[in-house]
């Protein structure tokens, strides 16, 4: 992988690598990330969102505890508990055993341990860079911050078999190597739908009732409510907000716990009355205006193209690359050939040439497992179902005749 110096050299902590074994639909995968844009493609059910959520959960927990008053150094006990809770919350599951491959009834043999026993653990290892002078040497462990955890399912599995409820308070995650220090930025997760319409009171209701929303909704709503930037960083955000505000025809405004679109000609419009695509842009704009998405951090965005017409997809493609250029490490999962092409076109422009990219294609095997192909360009991938389907549609069109 080619690693350009820019974003890494800014000293930001970023995800470098993710190794997983027996995790959801992935028997084994080793993903190496770019400091800028990371694009995941693949059919429905291939685990794109799983990857985004896993990376989000890890980066979230590598930060959140360190932000508390009197925070301790990262340690095994805290992280094991927090990872387990976060994984349950983000994947919206009661039982962590759902995260292991065997629960998907795959037909292939799970990994065998050295003793010949079936290894039913899900294994995850995420590596971050954390030095200012990071060099391309993935094996030089002293310069990496590593988070490894195994999901220990023995207890949960026995419980399931005997029909008992899983003890939610049990620690089901085993940390092998805790990170050496806390990360300093909270990651952002943007799901396929906008959250501005459900924002009002959402966090309070989420915390006091059981809702069928995963925890990323709660986390992102909290970020949406952060105070807006002031001073120099506000100016920086203003530049990035320009294309979004032009496309929305106004500015996102949070007043008394509700979102509005503030427009020059029609005044303040309640966000529910604004088109869904514009609400999505407004959500992105608000996260930029608060500074959470500005110059340092992570953005995990599931299907950014959802509910957007091509004109607006063009706008968000540019904003995504601006974010990367500013130092945000962006991970998107997409089904949109239009978005991918737009990103490719923009990446040739001088202003974005330095943005490092990485592409991942998730390929569904006959046995139901998923293999990961990866490369620095879209063309390093052999499996691009999006393209194949586009041409298969041409076949069907052609059969209609003129």
């Amino acid at each position, binding site marked *: 992988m080619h690693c350009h110096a820019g974003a890494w050299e800014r000293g930001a902590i970023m995800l470098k690598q993710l190794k997983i074994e027996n995790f959801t639909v992935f028997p084994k995968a080793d993903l190496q990330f770019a400091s800028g844009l990371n694009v995941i493609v693949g059919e429905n059910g291939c685990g794109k969102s799983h990857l985004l959520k896993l990376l989000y959960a890890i980066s979230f927990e590598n930060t959140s505890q360190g932000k508390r008053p009197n925070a301790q150094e990262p340690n095994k006990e805290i992280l094991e508990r927090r990872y387990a809770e976060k994984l349950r919350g983000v994947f919206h599951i009661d039982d962590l055993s759902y995260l292991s491959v065997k629960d998907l009834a795959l037909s292939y043999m799970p990994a065998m341990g050295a003793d010949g026993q079936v290894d039913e653990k899900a294994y995850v290892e995420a590596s971050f860079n954390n030095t200012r002078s990071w060099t391309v040497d993935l094996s030089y462990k002293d310069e990496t911050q590593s988070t490894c955890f195994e999901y220990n399912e023995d207890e949960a599995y026995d419980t399931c078999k005997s029909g008992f409820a899983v003890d939610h308070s049990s620690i089901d995650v085993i940390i092998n190597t805790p990170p050496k220090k806390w990360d300093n930025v909270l990651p952002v997760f943007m799901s396929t739908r906008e959250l501005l319409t459900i924002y009002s009171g959402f966090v309070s209701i989420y915390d006091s009732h059981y809702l069928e929303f995963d925890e990323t909704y709660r986390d992102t709503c909290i970020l949406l409510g952060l105070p807006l930037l002031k001073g120099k960083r506000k100016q920086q955000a203003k530049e990035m907000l320009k294309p979004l505000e032009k496309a929305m025809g106004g500015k996102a405004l949070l007043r008394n716990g509700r979102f509005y679109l503030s427009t020059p000609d029609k005044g303040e419009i309640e966000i529910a009355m604004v088109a869904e695509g514009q609400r999505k842009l407004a959500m992105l704009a608000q996260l930029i205006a608060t500074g959470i998405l500005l110059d340092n951090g992570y953005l995990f965005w599931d299907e950014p193209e959802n509910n957007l017409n091509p004109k607006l997809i063009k706008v968000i493609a540019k904003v995504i690359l601006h974010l990367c250029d500013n130092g945000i490490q962006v991970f998107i999962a997409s089904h949109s*050939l239009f978005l991918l*092409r737009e990103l490719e076109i923009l990446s040739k422009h001088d202003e974005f040439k330095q943005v490092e990219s990485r592409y991942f294609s998730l390929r569904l095997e006959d046995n139901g497992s998923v293999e990961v192909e990866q490369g620095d360009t*879209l*063309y390093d*991938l*052999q499996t*691009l179902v999006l*393209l*194949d389907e*586009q*041409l*298969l549609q*041409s*076949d069907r*069109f*052609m059969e209609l*005749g*003129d």
Partner: protein
Amino acid sequence: MFSFPDTLSASIYDQWKSRIRFESAFKDGNKKDDCSKGTKAVDFIVLDDKTLWLIEVKDYRNPQKRKKTIPKPSKLSCLIACKIRDTLSGLVVAKMNAKNSNEREFALQALKKEKIRLVLHLEQSKQHPQIIDPVAIQQTLKILLKKIDPHPLVVDANHSHSVKWSVQSKCPKDQELYENNGSPIFTNFEHYS
């Protein structure tokens, strides 16, 4: 109808005798293994100062014809990749073994060039000019052939991009985009032994 400026040498490679012999060497109707299915070939080879251009033409304008002889769009890139592979190996053989001196010399000159460019001329019906997304074809070609040419071109008579030759649409109804009609296989290439 293709028109080439004087600065380019062009040849209808598909009609080379050595190409036909090369194909027959790998063809045996009685056998069904991979080595007996024959070879494929691009339609044109064009040479300029430094570049070997391999050109394939696909004409999807005639609905009757396209059902019978033209590959489905989803199979097109793979077919072209095979044509490129077989043409390059065919050129090596022609350079060494072609009995026709024009073919041998053309192959020799072709293999002296510094780079290879791939071009697909893709013509579609006026009623449905974008049934096949040319960019999708270009992207799949790029995936398959990036080690040969990282920037393959997909062009048509009206959008010829940076290619140095021109194409005129002769008869959209029932004729091929190009026809030999007794015209020489070689254009602007003078080698007579």
